[in-house]
């Protein structure tokens, strides 16, 4: 996967909690939501039809403190599974940030993104180059790309496949 995406923007607010706005915790913990189809529940408490409406390759834009609360990675999986290619937010919760890299969900932290991208805009994001173009408004933004090893983790699809690579290359003690 090249770290380049083009898609339509869905906008959400600040302080989206992994266990409430992103995936309802009680239903998940009670086994009513399975990890395999957690994508169908993505943002269900905010917009019950979101998972149906979103298209593969779309881009999620959020405000500050995206993915706050506990470190439950079903939230990151839900966003990835429902088809979102990349999440851009003003700022991320620390656990959500790590879990996104771990499950291979590309993210960009960028102050000013809420002003720059509105619902329905079409964006082009290049994680390697550190650029975002708004194809609807014609404006562009830059950001500092991740160091190479984090880009590589995202490229191979997350920490599990990355660990396979490390083990196969004999880079870690067997």
């Amino acid at each position, binding site marked *: 996967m090249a770290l380049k995406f083009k898609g339509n923007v869905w906008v959400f607010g*600040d*302080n989206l*909690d992994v*266990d*409430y706005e992103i995936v*309802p*915790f*009680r*239903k998940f*913990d*009670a*086994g*009513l939501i399975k*990890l395999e189809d957690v994508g169908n529940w993505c943002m269900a408490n905010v917009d019950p039809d979101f998972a149906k409406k979103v298209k593969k390759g779309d881009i999620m834009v959020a405000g*500050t*403190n995206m993915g*706050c*609360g*506990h*470190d*439950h*990675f079903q939230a*990151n*999986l839900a966003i990835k599974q429902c088809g979102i290619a990349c999440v851009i937010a003003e*700022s*991320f*919760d*620390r*656990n959500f*940030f*790590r*879990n996104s*890299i*771990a*499950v291979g969900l590309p993210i960009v932290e960028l102050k000013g993104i809420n002003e720059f991208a509105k619902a329905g805009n079409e964006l082009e994001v290049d994680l390697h180059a550190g650029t975002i173009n708004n194809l609807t408004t014609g404006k562009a933004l830059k950001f500092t790309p*991740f*160091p190479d*090893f*984090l880009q590589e983790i995202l490229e191979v699809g*997350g*920490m*599990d496949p*990355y*660990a396979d690579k*490390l*083990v196969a290359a004999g*880079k*870690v*003690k*067997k």
Partner: protein
Amino acid sequence: MGKTIIEKIMAKAVGKSEVSPGEYVQFSASRIDHPFILTGTDMSERFGKWKSQDWTLFDPSKIIFAPEHCGSYTRVGSTTTNRENHRRNSNWLKQLGVADENILELGRIGNCHHLAVEKALALPGSVYFSAMTDGHAITVGGVGCFGSCMSASAPAFLRTGWTWFRVPESIKFNITGKLQDGVMGRDVYEYILGQIGPTGAIYQVMEFTGPVMDSMSMDGRQSMCCLAMFTGAKTGIVNPSQGIIDFFKARTKVHFEPQYSDKDAKYIKTYNYDGSKIEPQVVVPPDRHLVHNIKDVEGTPVTNAFLGSCASGRDEDLRMAARILKGRKVHPKVLFNITPGSTDSMSRVDKEGVISTLLDAGCFICAPGCGMCPGFYTPLAKNEVCITSSTTNLPGRMGDESAQVYLGSAATVAASAIEGKITDPRKYL
């Protein structure tokens, strides 16, 4: 230029002379030579494929395995029995080389973040990792340790011992004066949350300092650090006291080097608060950051009280509840669930008569672990109203989504259990 405690711990852990905020660093577990990773049943269950792979652990001797991270097998709504899961997982870890004494069984356990300290996995100046979905691993900041949960990176970490970190900026919270009797570490944290809000410390470290912290117990410090995530922080941390160093020296033969912030360390912000003015704080439903002084919500009727979780349930919390309940009774309409954090803690305070005082008062004492925090043992029924010293109050967290959860200190919970309504604990002290 001086460095903060977190920068020093991280630099040491990755083998660099210094690290700076914003830097991404790569960590290899081979640098740490004692057990410092805790994992549990639930982690492997959520990663079905974990066990189907041909797996090796990078180093089985660094791993401790505990039943659940919650210290129980009683999961509400669970489809398979966790006892079976535990048996399967412990057999499997044994095959991968984890020694019998590193596989803990009920009766020797508790909530995992209590265990991290009780079993000396988290040492001052070092790092501690929870290889589960468990953000409250940051609780160990209370003993001057950098705790982190591996969450979704856990399987990869257990296989490779490799992971990465982003070095955080630090914010200094200087708390002066002296806390009033009945105001606990918990109240100090919630007060700060009320001041800086849920985004006040995103991806930053909250370093708590000042006279109030110097005199605060290890238990109170852990409560505060446990909750740091609710202001968006990566962790909370406190420079360790001599008492804490002595606690670990008595528990482990492993050599450890406590770290302390330099006088000229760089903080991106400093907040000063007068600890003597802090009142008991209550967080009201449905949001984690709606913090009030207790007088705003006094008198709100409650049907349940819960004392426990990684944010509470330590010796000091149990003693405080016993002090308030001694010679008194829990309100006839209230179910007061008290879940000590660990077997060790329960046993220590039992010797002082704390447990029998609580039983005499009519409390329901559960086996050590997380208790009602994730809805175990006595989950909240429809429309119940609970006051609790646990971590969070999101709808559905502790049971039915219609139940209302108020958060307060162990003292506030105990006083409220007596009156059947939210009550200022200071009147009982």
